[in-house]
């Protein structure tokens, strides 16, 4: 892996959702917070768990698993909210567990196969990262990380589609 060239290399934050590992671009991440029950919103899609107070700003909290079409994740002690900024808008994603920050190379990202979904593909690509020595980690050779396309996940974008 070439680490000398700065172009093409970036860091991703990996996290788990329903036993799978996902990643988002580190640059979009604002902070990681503990799970806290948000204020529910009426008349919104069920994956929007509600709104939370981020230092005076009201941000929506999105159940990412549900948003991606998986079974809704049940919040537990290690659940986290990844606060991200998507195109200037902030949102919090509920994830099961934050795993790591790993550098990856753009050339290592493999395009995701066409997945049957009802909207634009939210998986930007697949990348293999070397697993660190972690408990509960079955694969030793490496983990497949699904890189998420945050733009496609934008809450407001989704609204425009349904509206």
């Amino acid at each position, binding site marked *: 892996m070439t680490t000398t060239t700065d172009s093409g290399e970036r860091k991703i934050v990996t996290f788990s959702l329903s036993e799978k590992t996902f990643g988002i671009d580190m640059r979009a991440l604002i902070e990681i917070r503990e799970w806290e029950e*948000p*204020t*529910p*919103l*009426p*008349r*919104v*899609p*069920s994956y*929007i768990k*509600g*709104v*939370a*107070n981020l*230092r*005076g*700003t*009201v*941000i*929506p909290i999105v159940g990412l698993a549900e948003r991606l079409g998986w079974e809704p994740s049940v919040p537990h002690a290690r659940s986290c909210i990844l606060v991200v900024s998507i195109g200037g*808008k*902030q*949102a919090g994603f509920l994830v099961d567990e934050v795993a790591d920050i790993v550098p990856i190379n753009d050339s290592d990202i493999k395009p995701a196969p066409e997945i049957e979904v009802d909207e634009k593909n939210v998986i930007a690509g697949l990348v293999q990262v070397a697993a660190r020595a972690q408990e509960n980690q079955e694969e030793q050779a490496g983990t497949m990380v699904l890189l998420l396309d945050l733009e496609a996940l934008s*809450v*407001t974008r989704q*609204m*425009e589609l*349904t*509206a």
Partner: protein
Amino acid sequence: MSDELDEIQAIFFEECVEGLAAAEAGLSAMADGDTSAETIASVFRAVHSIKGGSGAFGHAALLAFSHRFENVLDEVRAGRIAASTGVVKELLNAFDILSDHVTAAQEQSAPPSDDAMLAKLDEILATMGASVDGGAAPAPAQAATQAVAATESPAAPAVQTEEDEFGFTPVTAVIEDLDPFGFEPIAVSLDDLDAPVESNGDWTVRFGPSRDALANGGEPILIIRELERLGGRVVRVDSSALPSLREVDPEESYFVWYISVPGSIDKSEINECFDFVAPDSVVEIERAEQVVSGVPDPDLDLDAQAPEPQPEIPVVKAIEPPVAPASQPPLTLVESKPAAAVAPSAPKGEKGPEQASQTIRVELTKLDQLLNLVGELVIRGSILADRLSPADQERVELPQLSRLTRQIQDSVMSLRAQPIKQAFSRVPRMLRELSSETGKQVNLEVEGESTEVDKSVIEKIGDPLTHMIRNAVDHGIEKPDERVARGKPPCGSLRLSAEQKGARILVRVRDDGRGIDRERVRAKAVEKGIIAADAVLADEEIDQLICAPGFSTAETISNISGRGVGMDVVRSNVEALGGRVEIQSVPGEGTTFTMILPLTLAILDGMVVRLANQRFVLPLASVVESVRPEPGQVKAVSPTNEVIELRGNYLPVRRLTEFFGLQGVEPYEPEESLVIVVESDSAGLIGLMVDTIDDRREVVIKSLDQNLHPIRGLGGATILGDGSIALILDVEALVASPPPSTSKHSLKGLAA
């Protein structure tokens, strides 16, 4: 680098806008008959600073125009051109072109054509000069008129005045002053009219700082150094006013300096040295003559021709231009200056009325950020209070802290408040243009322009206001002859007023025109298919029709209105702000449009209610009363509709829990709930069923669409004292929505 310049330039344009507003206010006051020196000076100052900045930034066209404009204003300020109605009207027209110039410079577009206006300005300059002066050819108009003022003005009375005002006695000084120049009174021959101009004598500057000047740190030595830089030298100091040592007041100014400056220096340069001197200081600049071969100075002629001077003139007079007369006996050479007459061609710097409104510019986003942080501070403060033991809570520090926090919050809020004047400022010009387009005469009255409103409201009412005023002039006010025929004064009246009423701001546009022709409005509405031909409408309902989309009764679509979009825009804009429009009209007497707007878009006086154990905020402004229903008071009129019987009236009731599809609470009996009666614009009185009322508090509105999207029925969110979020209910949307359908699941997941 260029960014920096752009930034400075942006400030310049902001200042231009302020300057234009000040100039317009002043000119309007002049048009209303207030021609006080202060008013005229404010106009002059504003135009002068625009000129100054335009030169610095290389806006040549703007510079050229403002310069010519300023010339005329200067004359008006000096009292040489009377601020007559005609003159003020031209000045207003010139002002409009100046605004266009500023806009053109800002947008870097082609400057407006100003030839006609410039010609007019020049004409004013020229004619006024001629009318005052008998025709002194070599001297420019102002010199001639100036000469009038200076002539024979009895120095003694003038000095006397000065003495009274400033408490020192320069009388002797005045006379002695001239001695160094070997001056003698000369008999003047009136025949020597064609003598060559010869006026290169040195300047004599007499400078006596006032007590105020010293108090403001106006160090005289700095001024004298400035003059010395121009080649001046102090010829003598008059210390005659100096009392004996024991009576000396260390803060008083006793000295008067006499400085001789070479005649080759332009007078304006000398004036500039005194730009920042307190206005009540004595500053006199005189040209001492070199009497060459016995030829009297031509200026004598001016004196000779000039009409009799009035003794009180010195009190309003400015400093002489270079060709000022100097042939009078020494007494008249030194002209005593009134307090306000310092350096007419230069701005008074930071002095004067402008001082009162010193401002700094802050980006609105920074204010919002500050507001957010203060909100957080409040929240953290109350969390902290909760964690402390009751005994600690009682201590004095905590209440003090919360009071301070509260004060900070209020101050930050008030930072966003701006006088509504900003929105009203463009009205006068619009009216002038409308009058000239329609041939109708309109007199504008403005009231309550200092009412403070949130910045965001001011920004958004501009368009509705424009439409309302255009509408009033175009449809309301009649043509002069028509008005006279109806027994009204030929000049229509338009009244613009703003007042605060509770948490709402009322902006009214009232005209005394013909009122709404309900017959025609109705006919038009039927014709356009807005209402059915057999609809029965109350007068108010007909009036409201003019706000319907696509409605217009104007026979010809004029430039001004009649495209049928105007009032529709007013209504939708105002409603978007959370306000509403009311129309009252009396046929033949006039129409009043009232915009009822929230005072701020940032805070809300709200009632915290609970729905299914979740807190919501109901805007208090729309709450009428709350009722705990008796058994049987709430009755179902259909499977999904209920009404509440209240003092003989039946009001519809909405169960908010069901409206929002909130889960977790079994349907309950109405007796266990509270019905809050709210008043809505669209549906009148309506009851909203909630679980309980928690609290009443002011909340900071956070928009949901900043990070999410608008949700029907919700006006936003707020953060309560414990850091949790409460959603703000939008009463209008709640009552306007159809009653909850039988399947509440269909509501869930329904996007806005």
